[in-house]
């Protein structure tokens, strides 16, 4: 069974159960099923067929979820983009994946046109009948309104269920790329299903469950929330992006929505503990599982969570390229550790091992780079050669006596800042593109929640780029989590003896300045 068939099956079994809720609306499985069929027909009229890419750019909402399902039903591939992403970046992604259609909402519909160099339509952006005549020019991307999705109560819409193969791509998730261009991770139906089926079994998920969807839909964490819920006939409650700034509201959401399965980056949970009073109220009685992934969770907070709730605490690990490939359930002995809980052992039917620098398989007590093979490993990067079936994660791990793994750190310049994987090279390349910048180096200073992105900029001779102008330049091209927190101007970047940028020196310099200030 392929990914899109989960909703079709649950609509047959549980037509009147809630499937997805967000922005004050709730769709039953029947409504989601019918709305997806209706929107699939709109997309088909815009020329979308099997294998075509469709970019979905909007705030998290039932409409976006409907559009995802619609795209899959046509055998096409959806490419989610965060509602807060700048138009320029969405256009870059649309061009990179040669999208057939960009679906957007509100002012995004007009902002995306100039970014894509599209002509302004003569009679409105989207036609009321769903046709897209003004844009339907060969070679040009079509822009379609996400809000054109019908309400889902039309019984007359014939079902759309294009046959796809398990190894056909289902969606592409763009991640930060070291060369300065975002990379599209192409995930097949088989990849996604291997993880989703494993997660449903691990959680014992059923129709009574209510999954919180905290992660933006552009992140692989959201695959669990959406599709494990759909597989089980459960309900997924979309956390609005605006709540990212309101930890108290997030805690309220957890209680009000009677969440049974919560999955987020540890940073979100820490924010809820520190600023939202999560632990001041008793844990919701129905909360069965708290899952976290994306970065190490400081053990002190795990201890506090364990004392607060009887829910299972599960640490999941895996880059976007493999989704979740290892897992660990927190047991009392873990709370005695002085470091984060292990990332555990293989998940989702994958095989994982640690490869030493010499290329051997690391044994207990040894360190190596975590390597993954198996059903969740991506097809490859969009536009690149097909994946070899083996993915070296770039993460260094220690092999524990029981054969499971402890996370140590990254081996390259990719960093994690508050749960977001960031290739510093992409920020540097974007800084370099500023007219007044000769070169730039970006480092991370501080740890955990206090980690900050710091840019050191060497201006072109005679120029003095303003830090705010640089911020604005970045904000127009990168997601908000990649905008640097601090900018320092330098005459030259410090170098090591072999000519490489001395990044530790830059970190020390920032920390010294920061300390001197306080």
């Amino acid at each position, binding site marked *: 069974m392929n990914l899109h068939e989960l909703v079709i099956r649950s609509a047959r079994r549980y037509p009147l159960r809630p499937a997805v809720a967000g922005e004050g609306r709730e769709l039953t499985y029947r409504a989601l099923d019918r709305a997806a069929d209706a929107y699939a027909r709109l997309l088909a009229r815009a020329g979308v067929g099997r294998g075509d890419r469709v970019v979905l750019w909007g705030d998290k909402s039932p409409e976006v979820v409907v559009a995802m399902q619609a795209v899959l039903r046509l055998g096409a591939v959806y490419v989610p983009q965060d509602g807060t992403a700048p138009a320029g970046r969405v256009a870059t992604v649309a061009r990179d994946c040669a999208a057939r259609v960009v679906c957007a909402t509100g002012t995004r519909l007009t902002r995306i046109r100039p970014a894509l160099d599209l002509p302004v339509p003569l009679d409105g952006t989207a036609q009321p009948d769903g046709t897209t005549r003004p844009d339907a020019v060969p070679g040009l991307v079509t822009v379609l309104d996400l809000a054109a999705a019908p309400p889902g109560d039309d019984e007359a819409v014939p079902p759309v269920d294009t046959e796809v193969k398990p190894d056909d791509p289902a969606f592409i998730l763009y991640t930060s790329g070291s060369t300065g261009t975002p990379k599209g991770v192409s995930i097949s139906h088989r990849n996604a299903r291997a993880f989703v089926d494993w997660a449903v079994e691990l959680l014992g998920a059923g129709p009574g469950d209510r999954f919180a969807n905290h992660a933006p839909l552009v992140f692989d964490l959201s695959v669990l929330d959406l599709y494990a819920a759909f597989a089980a006939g459960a309900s997924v409650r979309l956390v609005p992006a*605006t709540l990212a*700034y*309101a*930890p108290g509201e997030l805690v309220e959401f957890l209680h009000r929505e009677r969440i049974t399965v919560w999955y987020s980056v540890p940073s979100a949970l820490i924010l809820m503990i520190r600023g939202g009073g999560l632990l001041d109220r008793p844990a919701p009685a129905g909360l069965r599982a708290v899952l976290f992934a994306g970065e190490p969770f400081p053990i002190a907070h795990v201890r506090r969570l364990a004392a607060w709730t009887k829910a299972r605490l599960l640490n999941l690990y895996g880059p976007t390229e493999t989704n979740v490939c290892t897992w660990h359930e927190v047991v009392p002995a873990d709370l005695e550790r002085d470091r984060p809980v292990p990332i555990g052992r293989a998940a989702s039917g994958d095989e994982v091992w640690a490869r030493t620098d010499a290329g051997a398989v690391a044994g207990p007590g040894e360190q190596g780079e975590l390597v993954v093979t198996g059903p969740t490993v991506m097809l490859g990067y969009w536009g690149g050669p097909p994946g070899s079936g083996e993915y070296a994660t770039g993460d260094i791990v220690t092999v524990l006596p029981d054969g499971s793994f402890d996370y140590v750190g990254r081996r390259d310049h990719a960093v994690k800042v508050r749960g977001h994987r960031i290739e510093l090279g992409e920020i540097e390349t974007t800084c370099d593109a500023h007219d007044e910048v000769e070169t730039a180096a970006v480092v991370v200073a501080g740890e955990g929640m206090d980690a900050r992105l710091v840019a050191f900029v060497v201006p072109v001779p005679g120029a*003095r780029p303003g830090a*705010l102008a640089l*911020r604005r330049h970045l904000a127009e091209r990168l997601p908000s989590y990649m905008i640097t927190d*601090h*900018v320092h101007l330098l005459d030259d970047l410090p170098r090591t003896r072999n000519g490489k940028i001395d990044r530790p020196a830059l970190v020390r310099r920032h920390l010294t300045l920061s300390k001197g200030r306080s």
Partner: protein
Amino acid sequence: MNTEAVTARVLDFIRTEFLWSDEDRAIDAATPLLEWGIIDSLRIALLQAFILNEWDVSVPTARIDARNFKNAASIAAMICELEQETVR
């Protein structure tokens, strides 16, 4: 409470606490703080503490959203509104 004075004080705080590494710090009341990454969720928590300390105004979580924290002017307007509500 004078909105202009509150705006100026909020700008001062942001310049000193968040933009200390910037040479120009040329933000004004309309500079988009969230959009340009000048403030984020953690820094909003620091701003909350500052507002409480400075004006004895507690910002309820329901008011912490992208609209109220869009720029220094919107933050100042919110502070003045909350202060008025307290007086009443």
